[in-house]
């Protein structure tokens, strides 16, 4: 039997290749992403090994404030600590390190680097030092308040050369410097695509943050003792209350590597989600191919049965075939994966991530995982078709037709409807108040049910969708329509990848549209000013608080208020506080204060949201202990409650609270009210000039600002397009395979049609429309399912403030058009093959 199985595989190389294609696609994504992640991990490890190579000790504060979304702010240490460290025996040299937000403004007046979504933008220190993190590639180290050095990649991107004047924006505002040096970080021109403006120590301390404080101290030993001994020696000079620690060179290297590893793991989890989807959808294609090939070999198998082969022998023979296909496909997929990872390595730098150089890292586990998973998925997908193949009655050998059975499938229908009913019941229960966690279960139920009843609905839906084709294309359209409907099982399985992809895309874009609408409503209600300056810095950096003051002085401006955030520890939990300027916010931005005015918020006060007050049993007059970035506990008294917590969050403090401390705070937006009767265009021009001089931020009218804020959700679109792209590729491959197999199966019919006068062009039209109908079938079902799914997700997020559900009409239309083209593209090769059918041999095959 094993020999027969092998012969059967080799006898049909085309089928082997087609089946493997589905396996290859799934495994290529899997191995590509894992190779890429491993490579990235290794190269970053090498980079930091390199950068910290000469550092023997690293002194820093132990105090960390953690905010939402993994933001952290480490307390700074006094600058004079450097002198103390220098005096420690065994220390050869020590320099302070400062790293804070700064943006380099390009020659065109716009800050370089992607706004918001891109890698971070830093200001830091570059000094001549044995353990220096930065080396100068060209020019010299910056010295004095007028000099700056830039990382190589940023300098090149902005077209700056040594001697140019460069504008840099930081906490203290925006300033111009002379470019004196181009620096590189280890062997890369900029780490991970981040931009760096580098200064000498005093300039960095003053311009980037609070003067008199540094982030850390880099220490080089004199070689008389080990790093551990040196670290102990340094630690001795600090009182425990100073909350300072010393790490060895190895420790800081390891920690930085781990940090970046964690950041990268997020990235690789994201990539593996994509490969899991690819593999899952690919398994449908594999299942479909094995089903079709079992059906096409029905007579052959029946003959074997008649000649004495047992059921299990037939089944086994097919499973052997699946093992061969799985192995072949996984190995080919693995090789393809190397290509994909190389592609990612090329694509990412093009998108602005400068990656350290390094060869591909192909781990043994990547090889084993890919082949194991590919094999497993293939064999699992082949089990059902193989069992079905074994069940063929020997009598079938005598029958003329070898079509797949197209029974009514009442049992399937009932099972599928059962799944859907249970799924809907669970969703209903959640809507009725059950825990949100059950939603996933309900969604899976509906999805599984839909796919199970697929064959039952495929025929009527395909016939319905095929109507325009039949009406437009006459008999070729009619045949395409009937062909799409003639084997509902096959059609529904073929359209499943389209269905899944479209459902995911529709659901995500429904979510995006709903969030979009919601944000728009919120801003319309709360933003009362005429203009806004926005910056899409996400949690790191933003506009200097000095900008709002400058804007407020412009003629015609009634008031300009900046709103920012600050990290804090409250009851030992990291919180993000909203920072306002109480004297200018009135009438400009409305958080819905309850019976109070903004002026009641003083240095020692805090506003909290009504919902927080209710939850924590707080009221006006309660005292909350807040630890800001300077690690100093402050007792703040609740001065008032407010209604709108969707943007402001639960806690609002005044800028005054931390004035003059090392707490860093940036504004994410500046809101501007004009004087009554101010001349709009003139004021706008003046505002625009102020923004241009500053070098960062976008001046927007009230309506523009609201649109922009709502539009930020469109970053979700990146995810949508990724999903769309992936599912489109798999769907196309799936349709190509099925159509090709159908064309082989319908050779005689094609021969007959050609004989009685069907032209090649008409043959192509028939195949093409069948393909389009199949694709649209998946799209229509997917859209319905996706809208349902989107609604459910939006409902689940109602506690997060989402209250209105919106159908993404644009995306829906786009998907329909897209799936039409998917059908067309997928049909190209099969249609060509169909025209190549030899009439005579087709008519003579019996």
């Amino acid at each position: 039997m094993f020999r027969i199985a092998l012969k059967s595989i080799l006898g049909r190389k085309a089928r082997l290749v087609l089946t493997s294609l589905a396996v290859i696609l799934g495994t290529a994504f899997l191995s590509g992403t894992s190779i890429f992640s491993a490579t990235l991990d290794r190269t970053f490890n090498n980079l930091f090994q390199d950068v910290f190579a000469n550092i023997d000790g690293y002194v820093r504060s132990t105090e960390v404030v953690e905010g939402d979304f993994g933001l952290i702010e480490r307390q700074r240490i006094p600058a004079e600590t450097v002198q103390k460290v220098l005096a420690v025996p065994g220390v050869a040299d020590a320099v302070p390190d400062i790293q804070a937000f700064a943006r380099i403004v390009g020659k065109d007046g716009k800050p370089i680097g992607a706004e918001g979504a891109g890698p971070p933008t830093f200001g830091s220190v570059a000094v001549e030092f044995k353990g220096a993190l930065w080396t100068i590639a060209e020019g010299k180290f910056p010295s004095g308040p007028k000099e700056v050095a830039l990382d190589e990649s940023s300098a090149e991107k902005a077209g700056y050369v040594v001697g140019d004047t460069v504008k840099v924006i930081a906490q203290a505002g925006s300033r111009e410097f002379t470019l004196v040096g181009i620096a590189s970080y280890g062997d890369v021109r900029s780490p991970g695509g981040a931009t760096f403006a580098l200064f000498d120590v005093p300039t960095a301390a003053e311009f980037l943050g609070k003067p008199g404080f540094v982030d850390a101290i880099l220490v080089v030993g004199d070689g008389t003792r080990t790093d551990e001994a040196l670290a102990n020696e340094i630690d001795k000079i600090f009182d425990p209350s100073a909350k300072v620690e010393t790490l060895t060179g190895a420790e800081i290297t390891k920690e930085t590597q781990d940090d970046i590893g964690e950041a990268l793991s997020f990235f690789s989890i994201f990539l593996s989600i994509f490969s899991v989807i690819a593999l899952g959808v690919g398994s449908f294609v594999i299942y479909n191919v094995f089903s079709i090939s079992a059906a096409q070999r029905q007579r052959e198998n029946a003959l074997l049965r008649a000649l004495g082969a047992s059921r299990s022998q037939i089944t086994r023979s097919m499973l052997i075939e699946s093992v061969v296909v799985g192995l072949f496909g996984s190995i080919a997929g693995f090789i393809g994966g190397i290509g994909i990872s190389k592609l990612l390595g090329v694509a990412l730098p093009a998108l602005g991530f400068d990656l350290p150089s390094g060869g591909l890292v192909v781990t043994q586990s990547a090889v084993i995982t890919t082949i194991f998973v590919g094999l497993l998925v293939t064999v699992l997908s082949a089990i059902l078709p193989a069992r079905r193949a074994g069940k063929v009655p020997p009598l079938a050998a005598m029958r003329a037709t070898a079509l797949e059975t197209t029974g009514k499938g009442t049992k399937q229908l009932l099972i599928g409807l059962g799944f859907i009913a249970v799924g809907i019941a669970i969703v209903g229960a959640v809507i009725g108040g059950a825990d949100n966690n059950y939603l996933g279960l309900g969604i899976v139920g509906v999805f599984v049910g839909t796919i199970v009843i697929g064959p039952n609905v495929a025929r009527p839906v395909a016939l319905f969708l095929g109507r325009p084709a039949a009406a437009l294309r006459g008999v070729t359209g009619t045949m395409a329509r009937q062909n799409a409907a003639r084997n509902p099982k096959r059609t529904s399985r073929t359209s499943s990848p389209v269905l899944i992809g479209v459902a995911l895309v529709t659901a995500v874009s429904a979510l995006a549209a709903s969030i979009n609408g919601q944000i728009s409503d919120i801003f319309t209600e709360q933003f009362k000013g005429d203009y806004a300056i926005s910056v899409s810095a996400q949690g790191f950096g933003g506009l200097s608080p000095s900008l709002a003051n400058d804007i407020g002085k412009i003629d015609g401006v009634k008031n300009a208020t900046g709103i920012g955030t600050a990290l804090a520890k409250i009851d030992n939990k990291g919180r993000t506080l909203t920072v306002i300027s109480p004297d200018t916010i009135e009438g400009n931005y409305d958080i819905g204060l309850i019976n109070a005015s903004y002026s009641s918020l003083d240095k020692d006060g805090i506003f909290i949201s009504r919902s927080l007050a209710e939850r924590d049993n707080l009221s006006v007059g309660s005292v909350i202990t807040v630890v800001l970035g300077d690690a100093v506990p402050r007792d703040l008294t609740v001065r008032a409650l407010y209604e709108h917590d969707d943007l402001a969050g639960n806690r609002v403090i005044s800028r005054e609270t931390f004035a003059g401390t090392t707490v860093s705070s940036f504004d994410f937006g500046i809101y501007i009210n004009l004087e009554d009767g101010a001349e709009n265009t003139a004021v706008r021009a003046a505002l625009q000039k102020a923004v241009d001089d500053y070098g960062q931020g976008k001046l927007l009218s009230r309506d523009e600002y609201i649109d922009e804020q709502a539009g930020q959700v469109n970053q979700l679109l990146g995810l949508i397009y990724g999903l769309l792209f992936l599912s489109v590729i798999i769907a196309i491959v799936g349709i190509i395979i099925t159509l090709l197999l159908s064309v082989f199966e319908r050779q005689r019919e094609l021969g007959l049609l050609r004989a009685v006068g069907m032209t090649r062009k008409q043959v192509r039209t028939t195949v093409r429309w069948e393909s389009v109908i199949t694709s649209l079938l998946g799209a229509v079902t997917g859209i319905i399912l996706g809208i349902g799914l989107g609604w459910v997700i939006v409902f689940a997020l109602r506690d997060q403030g989402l209250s209105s559900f919106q159908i993404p009409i644009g995306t829906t239309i786009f998907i329909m058009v897209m799936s039409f083209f998917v059908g067309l593209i997928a049909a190209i090769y099969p249609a060509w093959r169909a025209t190549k059918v030899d009439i005579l041999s087709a008519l003579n095959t019996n």
Partner: protein
Amino acid sequence: MTSPTLTVAASTHGATKIYGKDDSVVYALNDVSVDFYSGQFTAIMGPSGSGKSTLMHCIAGLDELTEGSAIIDGEDLSKMSDKNLTELRREKIGFIFQSFNLVPTLTADENIRLPLLLGNKKGNEEWIQRVIDTVHLQDRLTHRPSELSGGQQQRVAVARALASEPRIILADEPTGNLDSTTGGEILSFMRMAVDQLDQTIVMVTHDPVAAAYADRIVFLADGKVVSEMLEPTAEKVLDRMKSLGN
């Protein structure tokens, strides 16, 4: 039947078809020149491998001659492109095959009109109705092939071959898959098409009973025309076949 008024519907001149190369050449057709007349029912007979199917395929433009020419309605097929050949088959030739004559996804009516539909032509509705009446298919028109018996399917095939009023109908063992009663019925319809509807039919068969329905029989052996017979009967055919077999 052979009278001076006969016109030629299709003919071959020195038709030669060679398979294989060099040492192993096989002459499927060896210098065959034959005329098929309008309004006649001609049968082509011969043992297996005599080249009768090849001859028919070459007349139909389904196969290419190595040498010589096949002519339908005055047009030389060897000079035509694939597209022109397709249109010729659609407009001037009707086909009846041994089996698998119908497109399973189309109704009987659509199958009958298939060549016209493919050519985007309406056809002669009066004629089509007459054809449908002749083969008694009025009440089966909306059925799919899978819902028809073998005899009914072949009747649909006959109707399809007639529907576009072709210049010539080519039938390849049209009764080969049918029992003798149903086969006789089909042959009677074909006979009727010639006598009453003035059609031209060329049929390949190895069945003397079927051949006896024809006006004229052309006998082939080893790729050559070896003899002809007019007004055949089954007995006469059987005798001739025996003599050819020797």
